[in-house]
């Protein structure tokens, strides 16, 4: 059982290795990287490639670790007790299973994605230490320990908004998805648009990399932006020669809005152009 990337997801050797190491040693894999380099997609593709079910847990700023385990709905139970419902006698009706529980009780190995773990409170990763280490937790209401039938493959993504605690990091494998080099990027584009002409891709990528080189951009365009932009180029029937004429010191490439998404960056380019004109 080895992950080697999929037809729709070009993965590099180092990434494959990190994924396989974490699968073999049954430890969580922490993925970081620039936005738009396919961190979240990785879990989908791993699940796809290995033919496993994927359980996703998207973390928000209000998410607590407990929500991933289970939630006890006391209010419903109180209401039912007033209505004289029979269900009320069994507390397990009011335990809502979280994503971790779902992953643990599955009879087959699943892929569990904990997406954007850095969004949550700073204590969040610490609260999950034992659960991810031993793959079990104790449910107080039911007075029983829930432990994983088969340890799931855990993939965690982070956008670096908060530092993760050391104790948490110690338990993970770590991989940083760096921005793809030209060859890899070309392969990625080919996966998305197999029919696109080579020359057009070449020219578009030159413009794209030039843009990334501009010093001081707030948000450099990433792979997903390139993919969107190429789509627009195709729809707009832009020819390769039009792209060839693009020179950032004079004019903007067509559909810049797809590549640069905030006005400060566009403003920056405008200022650069002005400086060249002088």
């Amino acid at each position: 059982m080895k992950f080697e990337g999929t037809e729709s997801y070009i993965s590099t050797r180092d990434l494959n290795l990190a994924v396989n190491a974490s699968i073999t040693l049954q430890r969580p894999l922490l993925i970081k990287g620039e936005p738009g380099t396919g961190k979240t997609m990785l879990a989908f593709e791993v699940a796809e490639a290995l033919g496993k079910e994927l359980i996703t847990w998207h973390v928000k700023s209000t998410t607590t670790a407990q929500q991933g385990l289970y939630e006890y709905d006391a209010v419903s139970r109180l209401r039912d007790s007033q209505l004289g419902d029979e269900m009320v006698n069994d507390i397990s009706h009011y335990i809502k299973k979280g994503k971790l529980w779902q992953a643990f009780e599955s009879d087959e190995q699943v892929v569990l994605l904990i997406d954007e773990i850095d969004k949550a409170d700073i204590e969040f990763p610490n609260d999950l230490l034992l659960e991810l280490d031993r793959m079990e937790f104790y449910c107080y209401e039911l007075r029983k320990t829930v432990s994983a039938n088969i340890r799931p493959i855990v993939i965690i993504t982070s956008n670096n908004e908060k530092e993760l605690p050391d104790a948490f990091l110690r338990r993970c494998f770590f991989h940083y998805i760096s921005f793809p080099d030209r060859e890899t990027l070309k392969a990625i584009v080919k996966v998305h648009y197999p029919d696109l002409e080579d020359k057009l891709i070449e020219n578009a990528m030159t413009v794209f990399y030039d843009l990334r080189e501009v010093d001081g951009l707030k948000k450099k365009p990433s792979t997903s932006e390139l993919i969107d932009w190429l789509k627009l180029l195709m729809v707009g029937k832009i020819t390769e020669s039009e792209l060839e004429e693009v020179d950032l010191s004079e004019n903007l490439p067509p559909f810049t809005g797809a590549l640069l998404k905030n006005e400060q960056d566009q403003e920056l380019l405008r200022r650069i152009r002005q400086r060249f004109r002088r």
Partner: protein
Amino acid sequence: MFLDFFLLLKNDGLPVTIKEYLTFLEALDEGIVEYSVDDFYYLSRSCLIKHEHHFDRYDLLFGYYFEGIEKINTEDFMKIPEDWLRKSFVNALTEEEKEMIKGMGGLDKLMERLKELMEEQKKRHQGGNKWIGTGGTSPFGAYGYNPEGIRIGQDESRHRRAVKVWDKREFRDLDDDVELQTRNMKMALRRLRILTREGVQEELDLDKTIEKTSKNAGLLELEMVPSKKNNVKVLLLLDIGGSMDDHIELCSRLFSAAKYEFKHLEHYYFHNCLYEFVWRNNRRRWQEAIPTLEVFNTYNSDYKVIVVGDASMSPYELLYQNGSVEHNNDEAGFVWLERLKNRYPDIVWLNPVPVPQWRYTESIGMVREFMDDRMFPLTLSGLKQAIKALKDKKVKFEKH
């Protein structure tokens, strides 16, 4: 098996632990990699290094340790490892020696020579007069003395006369990653809060629920409220460069703590005294100057303002127009400080200079008086008092 390698990483300050080392051995045992140095490198990195900031250093050490097995990347060797340049050797040369090495050639010549040396040299070096390292009289490196030296990797300008500064760190923004010892500061800053209930109603309001339920003849009726959140808004103005170099670490810590603690935190930099321009990104300060008035217009007077600066400057900078050391200012420093004070009633000044030294610098006294004694030292107790002052206008600095 790779214990030496592990210890090398550990001794070089990379945060590797035994648990990670054992994981690494386990992974090797499982046969995840097969006879490829590349794979071995990726696996060890994935097991041992948990932060991309450390990758560069790891590459260097890996290359150093496994040199001879296969070279990783020659470009990485070309970079000057920080390690060599660490402040470990400070040497004072005699006047005679200084005289002797004066004028080892012009700047261009030095640059050329540096490139040559970097290619020639592969090992750490300290002292002597040829290789790059710390101390010694070679024109390259830090903490040595050569009047035309090129400074590499030193915390601050020691003689303040380097021809060219290569230190990337010099112009680095205040690093808000500094987690070390910021916990106390966070706790102090935590006192500055304005709790408001806003957003989704997700907390049970027990009192109201009981009240409504009893009115409802015992039939449950729930009442929810949004949970409390800290909504304080903070505008941080930081003095940077020049005499502030001595305090940069302390300021970084404060910045790091503040950034973590306050959701609405805006920060700007200035140099010595507030004038008509501030900037956000220290690296691009000359390109991206922001008019101070624009800042005033953007943030309303609800913002609590914390000025961090040593207030150590020539009194001219405060009193006269064109007094700034850096540019021609149309209006004196005090004019701008006055505007700031009027715009934001809740304002304090944090000074990293220790209190006993305050009286030796005239401008500190002036600013202090101007701030109505709301200047506090950047210490834990000073910070606590400052936070109190932001909430209560009557609080002034008291020396214990």
